[in-house]
């Protein structure tokens, strides 16, 4: 697949990609775009019936059903349109994927049976994997703190999570939680300290093994090819292989 004949020895592959005449043609994409697509489609492969993303008819039922689309910068329908147009970068930078609360209203109503909520999850994972800057960094922060909380104790301790989150975002907001904490305490609903599960060591081993497996499955980095057009350039990802659900 790699076509190194395009690159002279004095320019990097990226420069070659940028200056290649193919890239001035409409419909062709840059290497970073192609890499994002590859990472994203790899995630889509893991969704049962994920290949239905190809069936989108741009009707906008997803956007109309979404309770938070009014607060998004690009609508769920536009997410799919942008993916098709080779604008993964725009999707990665949006608030949209981070404001989705995964209520599955879109997935339930999509006339083409597209698992839109799962597609959004795949986009979130792609952004986390590529460590992309976003317009909603607080969501990535919360996700990271949640994961480290789970890793440390095996169970979630809400107090620790909220405290760490606001210490990193708006520390003054923590004072606003004092009345709530008191109410929780009075009604015996406040766990003061986190509790670690007994099998914590075993859980850690399971997690590191799963991480290792995940790394093993990571795709090879892409070399530049002038053929990154639409779905074609990624034809070897076999989007059609999995049926079901």
């Amino acid at each position: 697949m790699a076509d190194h004949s395009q690159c002279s020895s004095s320019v990097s592959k990226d420069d070659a990609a940028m200056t290649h005449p193919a890239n001035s043609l409409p419909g062709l994409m840059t290497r970073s775009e192609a890499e994002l697509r590859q990472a994203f489609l790899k995630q889509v492969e893991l969704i049962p019936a994920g290949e239905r993303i190809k069936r989108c008819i741009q009707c906008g039922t997803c956007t109309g059903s979404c309770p938070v689309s009014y607060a998004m910068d690009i609508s769920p329908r536009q997410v799919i349109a942008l993916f098709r147009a080779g604008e993964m970068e725009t999707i990665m930078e949006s608030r949209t994927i981070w404001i989705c609360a995964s209520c599955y209203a879109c997935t339930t109503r999509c006339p083409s049976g597209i698992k839109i909520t799962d597609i959004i999850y795949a986009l979130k994972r792609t952004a986390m994997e590529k460590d992309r800057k976003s317009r909603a960094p607080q969501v990535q922060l919360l996700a990271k703190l949640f994961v480290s909380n789970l890793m440390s104790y095996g169970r979630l301790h809400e107090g620790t999570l909220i405290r760490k989150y606001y210490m990193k975002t708006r520390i003054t907001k923590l004072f606003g939680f004092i009345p709530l904490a008191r109410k929780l305490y009075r009604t015996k609903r406040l766990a003061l300290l986190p509790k670690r599960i007994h099998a914590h060591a075993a859980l850690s081993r399971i997690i590191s093994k799963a991480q290792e497996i995940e790394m093993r499955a990571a795709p090879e980095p892409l070399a530049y090819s002038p053929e990154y057009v639409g779905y074609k350039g990624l034809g070897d990802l076999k989007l059609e292989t999995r049926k079901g659900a």
Partner: protein
Amino acid sequence: MTVKYAYYPGCSLEKTQRGYDESVREVFKALGQELVEIDDWNCCGATVYMSVKETVSLAVSARNLALAEKMGLDILAPCSSCFTVLSKTNRILNQIPEMQRDVNEALAEGGLSYSGKTRVRHPLDILMNDIGLEAINKRARRSLGGLKIAPYYGCQIVRPDKGFDDREDPVLLDKMFRALGAELVYFPMKVRCCGGMLMTTFEETALKLNKELLQCAHENGADVIVTTCPLCHFNLEAYQGRINEVFGTRLDVPILYFTQLLGIALGLPVKQIGLDSVFVPLGGKITSLAEAAYA
């Protein structure tokens, strides 16, 4: 008939939502079912982990499925988020053999394996479809006497495709409480999302969603909103004061878990079903019902 379930309370039911935990345990006991808590269960990863890593998140939640499989029991998961994540993990592992292989390789590090046999169930499903209204009615000690309720299902209990109730217009809560003598108010927002974790990350948006839910119930004359999910419950309950501050409203709608209201109808003691842990005062109608039921 007594049926045993592997009980998976989940992190929020352990403490902050003890009212849900206590009422689920008591209601199932009263109806002759046995709940055995899964020993040393871990957090399911919630919706958050799914947005970070696929294989890892599946392995984390699959540990619980494996523990239940070892017990030979189906899982009972009252939290909508746990219910969704565990069901989703189960479906993926059953449909994608490569994934099951990978996850099992990880689980082996903890001396566990999972073959895909555990079923994940929600208490509402079991109460209405297995135990049945007839048995519930027979055990009921008191009619809910025209109490006006707004049944709030939330999003994840029936979606994306849990299969035990309609995804757009679920009716099991309606049926249950109508049969127990309550009056169901018009509540078209029954499956509208509360925003869940957005209350932390996009507070403004989440406050608006919850204000709309509370207002809809209030304007239609509900005495109480009945919930099935700890996230919905916490947002509606703990942030009601903040909503009034921000929007200048004067909402004070009591929020109860459906198992708490069912517990009242079954005549269970107030303290055993966590009625002493509510934030929004229950109001005369519910209080007298609860006390009369106990007496």
